[in-house]
């Protein structure tokens, strides 16, 4: 069995948004749509204020509420835990978007590009008409993972089999890997550090772990 998860080290993340940029480049998401983004979090009251940066996006839950509510079966889950959307089945009702407690889903009604005078070369190359009018979200770069696996590569270790955001992170704060493999990079990180998951009480069993040493 395989369960791909993402580990985000909040003590390392510097909030540079390189993961956000690499995701936008890789997936050519339109303005306003960020499958991966980093929140700038301030906590406490002056003068006792803390600040941290928190990468968010689809948490690829084991028990995804989006999949439960989806009336068309467009939202599915692979055996490796990655939550998927079949753009050809989705009716764009957005029920999944209101069911997701992580604000990870978007719907775009018309083609939009970064600049008003048409798509950039990259946007034109990667534009997918099937994404118009339907739900969309982070895919954990499943196409890269699958292509890498076909070449015998290891997701999370070999860049060609690893999500673009984790590849791009300048602080090595994002780590992707197989949680079922006790010797994997993510297993070691979670074994050796303190961590939490967001909104666990909602019973989603998210596949996104945050390393954090509370001060």
């Amino acid at each position, binding site marked *: 069995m395989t369960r791909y998860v993402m580990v985000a080290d909040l003590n390392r993340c510097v909030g540079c948004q390189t993961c956000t940029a690499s995701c936008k480049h890789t997936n050519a998401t339109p303005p306003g749509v960020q499958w991966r983004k980093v929140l700038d979090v301030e906590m406490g009251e002056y003068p006792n204020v803390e600040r941290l940066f928190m990468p968010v996006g689809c948490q690829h839950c084991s028990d995804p509420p989006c999949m439960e509510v989806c009336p068309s079966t467009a939202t599915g889950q692979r055996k490796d835990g990655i939550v998927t959307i079949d753009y050809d089945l989705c009716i764009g009702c957005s029920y999944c978007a209101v069911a997701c407690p992580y604000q990870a889903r978007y719907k775009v009604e018309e083609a939009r590009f970064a600049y008003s005078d048409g798509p950039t070369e990259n946007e034109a190359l990667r534009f997918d008409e099937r994404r118009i009018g339907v739900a969309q979200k982070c895919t954990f770069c499943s196409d890269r993972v699958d292509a890498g696996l076909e070449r015998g590569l290891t997701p999370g270790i070999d860049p060609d089999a690893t999500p673009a955001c984790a590849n791009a992170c300048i602080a090595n704060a994002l780590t992707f890997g197989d949680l079922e493999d006790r010797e994997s990079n993510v297993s070691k990180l979670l*074994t050796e550090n303190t961590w939490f998951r967001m909104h666990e009480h909602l019973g989603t069993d998210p596949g996104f772990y945050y390393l954090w040493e509370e001060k």
Partner: protein
Amino acid sequence: MKPTKFSRFGTSHQAIWDWRAAGNFICGGAGSSLLAVSTFAAFPGVADGRLLLLAVLLIGAGLAFVWTEIGRPWRAFNVLFHPQTSWMTREAYVAALIVALLAAGAATGVAFLSHIASLAALLFLYCQGRILKAARGIPTWREPAIVPLIVATGLVEGLSLLVLIVTMQGAAVPAMFAALILLVALRAAAWLRYRSRMNASDMPLSTRRVLQSSHLAVLGVGTAVPLVAAALALAVPMAALAGALAALAAAVAGWHFKLLLITRAAQVQGYALGNKLRRGHPFAAR
């Protein structure tokens, strides 16, 4: 509730479902309930065909609202693909069942079919409550007390429409006013339970404000006015118009609440730091 470092942040109002989604809950709730209560009132006979037609049209109008909101309207029938877990799929199937049963009843004259259709209408109403409860991203919707509240609100709307129509026809009977009093009281109880659960939660200030304005509308316009007016209609046989006023106030308050619930009281979950820091592999306990 005092905010801590683990409190939710980044909550904003969902802008995905708008007044059209509210239209489904308003029209669908009123239509399904009208079907149920008019059949109950006519039992063991069959309700006036015009009432049944109005009920079906209202249910259809609600679904049409949703149809205008979806991104790929020509794939609308894909909504039927997931009855295993999706309450939206189940709602669509029940709507189809209602139409089929009423059509069969009208064609054959068998009253039993319309009786079954009225039970299906109650199921439709229940589906609407469960649709909201399953939306785990919206705290005001996923609260379990939303289900009895949506059902009670729908029942009040349907009965109110029936009372209005029969009053205009000069055929109102005291039992209808008594039933309205009962249902309005039930809705008020469901509302108070829902509101107390929400007040005990960490809902954002903006949601709290919207629910407060709903509170005044539901208890004032939607409960006090109907109770007094319906009681007057019961006590004074010539005061049928008071009964109509009771029905109108009860229905409008319910519709107002649903509109606010979908379009203004629907802040998303937001983000939060987890307050359970752990060390060790997540599967270590296996």
